[in-house]
């Protein structure tokens, strides 16, 4: 409303490239000629990688032994809660037709076990697992405390539902005496898990460290007695426990169980303990080797190959269109 004489200061905008939107620029214009080479290159690359991947996936030796039904009796036994501490064993003989070279990894594989459920994932206490506060059972309900109020260690649904089958690999040379295959229990966890995220409470010995806590309801033994052979593999630092606690992304998953040296011919004696029927799932044991790209499946190789093929197809079709319309394009320029 008011005219102020102060307005007279110069309002001339700066003449800079930025302010005048005149920055030097590359103009992105997708056109056939520029794109075609890119398409071809991508196609070549994808095809190459795909073939390599497929080949390497082929080199992986993998054998899966399902034992849900064979060990069904044990499962039935387990269904009765009073029998939880009874031993039940079943054995599945299998024949390895090919030599598995190199390191062999033994996995257990579960079908339809939803470790990724929202509530399930949450049901753990990280501060307890890291050994700082055993009594902290924050998110673990209803597996936080026993009936008498003592905190459960390790608490929560994940720990409670741990896979507790014991798998023993035996080697039957001539169907007489099975020789137990030596298996490495170590090195199956992430290094950071074992040394950072999971720690036992500091004390003279484990049992005293876990004093004042109780075992999860479905566990047979307390956490400090998981591995009777190796005392260092007990408590929260138990490798099998750590592996289990890293919740799988999909309902069907395998988890590393043991590492093996070279194997040729085996019979398997398995104490089938793990209840599978409750979630109508299945369980199996997988023996597998690894390649440079990890235990990647065939899929990635296929996907690469397909992508490469599609890219080539696209580039060919573009070329076709390009050739077809070349005259018209010239027309446009001269029009």
């Amino acid at each position: 409303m008011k005219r102020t004489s102060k307005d007279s200061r110069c309002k001339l905008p700066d003449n800079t490239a930025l302010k005048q939107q005149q920055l030097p620029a590359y103009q992105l214009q997708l056109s056939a000629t520029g794109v075609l080479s890119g398409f071809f290159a991508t196609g070549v690359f994808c095809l190459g990688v795909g073939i390599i991947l497929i080949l390497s996936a082929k080199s992986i030796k993998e054998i899966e032994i399902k034992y849900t039904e064979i060990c069904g009796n044990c499962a039935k036994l387990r269904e009765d809660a009073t029998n939880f501490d009874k031993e039940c064993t079943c054995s599945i003989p299998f024949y390895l037709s090919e030599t598995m070279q190199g390191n062999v990894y033994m996995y257990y594989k579960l079908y339809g076990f939803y470790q990724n459920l929202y509530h399930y994932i949450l049901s753990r206490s990280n501060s307890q697992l890291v050994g700082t506060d055993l009594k902290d059972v924050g998110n673990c309900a209803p597996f936080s405390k026993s009936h008498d109020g003592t905190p459960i260690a390790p608490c929560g649904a994940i720990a409670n539902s741990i896979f507790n089958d014991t798998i023993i690999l035996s080697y039957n040379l001539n169907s007489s005496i099975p020789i137990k295959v030596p298996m490495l229990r170590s090195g199956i966890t992430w290094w950071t898990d074992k040394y950072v995220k999971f720690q036992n409470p500091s004390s003279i010995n484990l049992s005293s460290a876990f004093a004042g806590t109780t075992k999860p309801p479905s566990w047979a033994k307390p956490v400090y007695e998981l591995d009777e052979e190796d005392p260092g593999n007990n408590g929260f630092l138990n490798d099998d426990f750590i592996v289990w606690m890293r919740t799988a992304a999909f309902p069907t998953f395998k988890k590393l169980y043991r590492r093996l040296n070279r194997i040729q011919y085996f019979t398997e004696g398995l104490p089938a303990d793990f209840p599978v029927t409750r979630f109508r799932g299945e369980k199996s044991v997988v023996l597998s080797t690894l390649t440079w790209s990890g235990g990647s499946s065939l899929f990635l190789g296929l996907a690469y190959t397909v992508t490469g093929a599609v890219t080539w197809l696209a580039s060919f079709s573009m070329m076709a269109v390009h050739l077809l319309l070349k005259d018209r394009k010239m027309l446009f320029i001269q029009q």
Partner: protein
Amino acid sequence: MRKEGKKRWKRKEDKKRVVVSNLPSEGRSYKENPNRHYCGNQIKTSKYTVLSFIPKNIFEQLHRFANLYFLGIVVLNFVPVVNAFQPEVSMIPICIILAVTAIKDAWEDLRRYKSDKVINNQECIVYSRKERSYVQKCWKDVRVGDFIQMKCNEIIPADILLLFSSDPSGICHLETANLDGETNLKQRRVVKGFSEQVVQFEPEHFCNTIVCEKPNNHLNKFKGYMEHPDQTRTGFGSESLLLRGCTIRNTEVAVGIVIYAGHETKAMLNNSGPRYKRSQIERRMNTDIFFCIGLLFLMCLIGAVGHRLWNGTFEEHPPFDVPDAKGSFLPLALGGFYMFLTMIILLQVLIPVSLYVSIELVKLGQVFFLHNDLDLYDEETNLSIQCRALNITEDLGQIQYVFSDKTGTLTENKMVFRRCTIMGSEYSHQENAKRLETPKELDSDSEEWTQYQCLSFPARWAQGPATLRGQRRAQPLRRCHSAQVPIQSHFRQRSVGRCESSQPPVAFSSSIEKDVTPDKNLLPKVQDAALWLETLSDSKPAKSSPSTTSSIADFFLALTICNSVMVSTTTEPRQRVTMPPSTKALGTSLEKIQQLFHRLKLLNLSQSFSSTAPSDTDLGESLGDNMPTTDSEERDDASVYSGGYSTDGGYRNSTWDQGNIQGSGLDASLEEVLEAPALGLASPELYYEAESPDEAALVHAAHAYSFTLMSRTPEQVTVRLPQGTCLTFDVLCTLGFDSVRKRMSVVVRHPLTGEIIIYTKGADSVIMDLLEDPACVTDTDVEKKMRKIRARTQKHLDLYARDGLRTLCIAKKVITEDDFRRWVSFRCEAEASLDNRDDLLMETAQHLENQLTLLGATGIEDRLQEGVPDTIAALREAGIQLWVLTGDKQETAVNIAYSCRLLDQTDTVYSINTESQETCESILNCALEEVKQFHGPQKPDRKLSGFCLPSETLPPTSRAAIPEVGLVIDGKTLNAIFQGKLEMKFLELTQYCRSVLCCRSTPLQKSMIVKLVRDKLSVMTLSIGDGANDVSMIQAADIGIGISGQEGMQAVMSSDFAISRFRHLKKLLLVHGHWCYSRLARMVVYYFYKNVCYVNLLFWYQFFCGFSGSTMIDYWQMIFFNLFFTSLPPLVFGVLDKDISGETLLALPELYKSGQNSECYNPMTFWISIVDAFYQSLVCFFIPYLTYRDSDIDVFTFGTPINTISLTTILLYQAMEMKTWTIIHGLVLVGSFLMYFVASLVYNATCVNCNSPTNPYWVMEGQLSDPTFYLVCFLTPVMALLPRYFFLSLQGTYGKSLILKAQKIDKLPTDKRDLEMQSWRSRQRPVPIPGKAQHTHHPVPPVPERAFRASTPKSSSPPERKYKEDWVLHGEKCSRDHLKDHPCPGDSSAKLSSREYLLLGPSKTTTSGAYSSGQTDEYRPSSRGSHRRSQSSLTI
């Protein structure tokens, strides 16, 4: 204190405001102040205070739907049954959004606060009883009831009732430019009864009570009365009210009492805050958001049902199904319902929260660049573009209709004398034309010019007797503007050539207007003529022969005399010069002059009563000397001063003779003084105050030939001749200009010859009718000569008109003393009559103004603003329909339309002027039918498309044959259309028209038209205007643009953007509009894509986690993803990306159509991008899924490649969208990508157990050491983007769209590009813009003479290239190349319609000849009739 009690009682009684003086209660406590209930003068436009800011701002922000939605989501997060990870975290986005908006609001409010503070602390002078004098106070301390003294050029602080003016006649001049944009001076009058106080006003003696209406926002409405202590009442009206914001001019001191203060002033009440406008993209976006919400609900529903079904597959609870804390499980249905809520939280990002913030930020960035554009900066006014609305920049790219004001918007409103013709010889003033062609140079030194010589014309001396200062005789002239006050008050004729110098603004006196270079050929002739005049004085009884020399002298005398220009000096306050100031320079007879002044002053005093009589009546010319004038003053109920008046009247009546003697005595003495030599250039400091710029231009032109108007009083005009002699003419009578007669006349007595001469100036069409008939002249030589002159003048007039000049004819007539006396008595009778007064006055004028001798004609240019035709052509090419809505006269508007190429000479122009609805309907029907014939059958689709111009859809061959159509319509007709529900017909017709002109439209009509077009055709509209009369139109349109720097601030205040020149509109729309639109539109689409794509990843995962609402991505990463990792590139894209370079956009306006058609953002693009987002999210999820299936990967390790993949995909997608890669684009893209990795790595390395259940410790690091991760991360984006990339490449190579072609052209090297653009343009427009060359292709129709016999100069106008005729008289159609009989159905009633015929080329001379000859025999009745008719069409 009786008054006080009464006052209080009155306030309760009715809706009145009672104001008494504050002075009696001064110094006492506040409670005793009688005016304490009224609002103070402090204004506060800021919304918040420091304390109230946070609650108030949050409250206001929550009014926005989106914010409310997000708040709801946050609340939902805190509901325990809903499985939210961390409710606190979910508050972060909404908090950031609210904070950003709050900061923006706070900043805006701070600006308002600061400007309030400046205004509040301005100083004014208020009377204080303690000090017994006026003391300085701040505006904010002014209260109702205070007495304020204002000096010249001060701004009025509040609404003030004028009680005293230093002007002896109690007049105070006011410039209301700040308020309504009118730059001419207005007069305000002291309240009756206060004008006696000659010396000084004594506020302490004021003990009256003022009763007036409550505050309202009618600027021109105010009523009240003043109650004197003795119970008598004096009424007053708006003519005594000084409005806040106006500027005092020409008045030394004015004193008044404050009536309304602060927010109750009319100015503030009129100043409604800016309304919130929502852009089209935003509206479109909101509907799409609803789609998204629908999508969200669908997905949530799938989740809920899926959860229910999945849970139902288990007969007993599996070990991973975790019961609640008490160990019990939820019922399935309830679980499903809870899952629904959980899913809403999980997928909430589908509604892009950050979109709103981003849009605001992007718009800020766009506005920043708008502000900084050098091309939109105007050096003259030192103003760049101002964006007052921050949220509709992108609408600039979608405009389909532009509504423009004319004066000051298209034109500079600087009238410049261009050329003239005298006695049939043309003087082209080449130098003048050259000077005008290079306006820049001149403008640059305009400051000097104003310093040197400021001549001003504050116009509007129309309030009649008020201006008289002791002059008894004639009133100043009145022109059409003032005759129609209600309409005219809205419509400004003028603008100021306002230079930012220390000088006060002076109307119509920029250097361009003042400085006329004389024609070389004419100059010597003028000198001869002047000499001839000199000699005339020697031989007194010289006979006025029609020689060229005398005609030239007469011509310039007419230019000088025949106007209502007042002269004043530059000294402040500008005082009216009633006698030449140069006399001072003589120094010879100062005493004599003093004596003279004294005598004049005495007269003034004795006459001061009469000056207070408000006579708003119109055409009344009081002819002082020769008739009793009582009637003209008698119309008021002013009983107060009736006593004084009657004596005055008596004095007048009785002393006419005496006065005459006295007057002649004065003359004698004056002449004695003035005839002295050596006047020279001693008086450069003259302001010419003209009512209209035309007059000013003519006076300046005469001045250039040294015929200088030195002074003007109602009774005398002094002219200085080139030789320095001053001639003083007695003005016997002035017949003011009015729109019906379209001419004005001045009757003067020549000081040398003593002849009574009538000088008439007017529209050519009118004057040509009134010329004396050559046939009547006995001498055949003279007759021939006259015919020749007339024919040649007419030819020149046509030439001028074609050049877009405003033409005026100058004529004179000498009458005998007896005739004049007879006429005066006739005139007196007419004045005295009560009925039919107007008609009679008109008749008397016609009796005088006939048998004129043509002297010549002038061509005045209302200069178009620089670049207007070019801008209009570009806008039109861009597919924008341009309408001109003006309050101006039809002829002027049409003229301007031609000169700015809005209409073309070859167009068929329909003009509709009617008041009756039936007539209007039939005309519309007729026109429609005719136009449809022109355009053939393809029209209907064009109509549907709404905004398409006919020319563009037509093949070139057929187009050549089809004339463009223009429509001219006036305010009355518009009224009929609106009342008669003919809007749809009107709109249909307008869609065939190339351009539409609405003349004589009121501000309300302007806004109604804008609304009509906007709503009925649902198009994007833009209004551009510069004055207060455009405010309503500016507000009605989707985008309002104010032109700043010319007129007042009203238009700017109400506009969304303010630019300083019309031509800036071109770049603003074509370049910035296009950019803003395409940037923002593509950014919005991108945002939708981005969010849908990302959220779907989570959704797909639900199928693998039992619909439990788990995520595989860390929550923080998810938030960071939207807030940091992917937010910057779209912002940079939205601010900086240029799909096409500015030069190309300017060169190929057609590209603008992409914005009009919403090519970047429409349902199609939206859904395509949504589908694409679905595809991409599928790829991004399932390739990793299939890769990692059956492996020992854990939940969050799986999330990391997914997150990385989607980020890569989304950024690459953005990279494909960016058309212009600058270093910033690249940096931001790469930076975002790197930022993701750095942030993730740091986060994953430091956070051991921080975000349960994620525990992201070392996840990223672990992934980076896994070759599978890289393999997946390379493959997936390739797969995801392959289709789009393929499609874009195909489109980029073979696409047909204009944008793509333009992009290609853009990439070419400069020389090739220019070539390509030329070929493009020629391709688009096979027919070049029809120029003069084309006229030959389309011969002018042989218009039958009959047409012109019947035609009547209906609605005047200065320059005419076309003649109107009655539709009925001959139902002929005229198109460019055919003229055939075609009786229009149902047009029998269309009496008032007229068609314009274009007369071009060879037929011109013949037609003009026919015209004049046909006219002569029946000119009286016909002109009479025409006046009646146009009158009837002009008054409602």
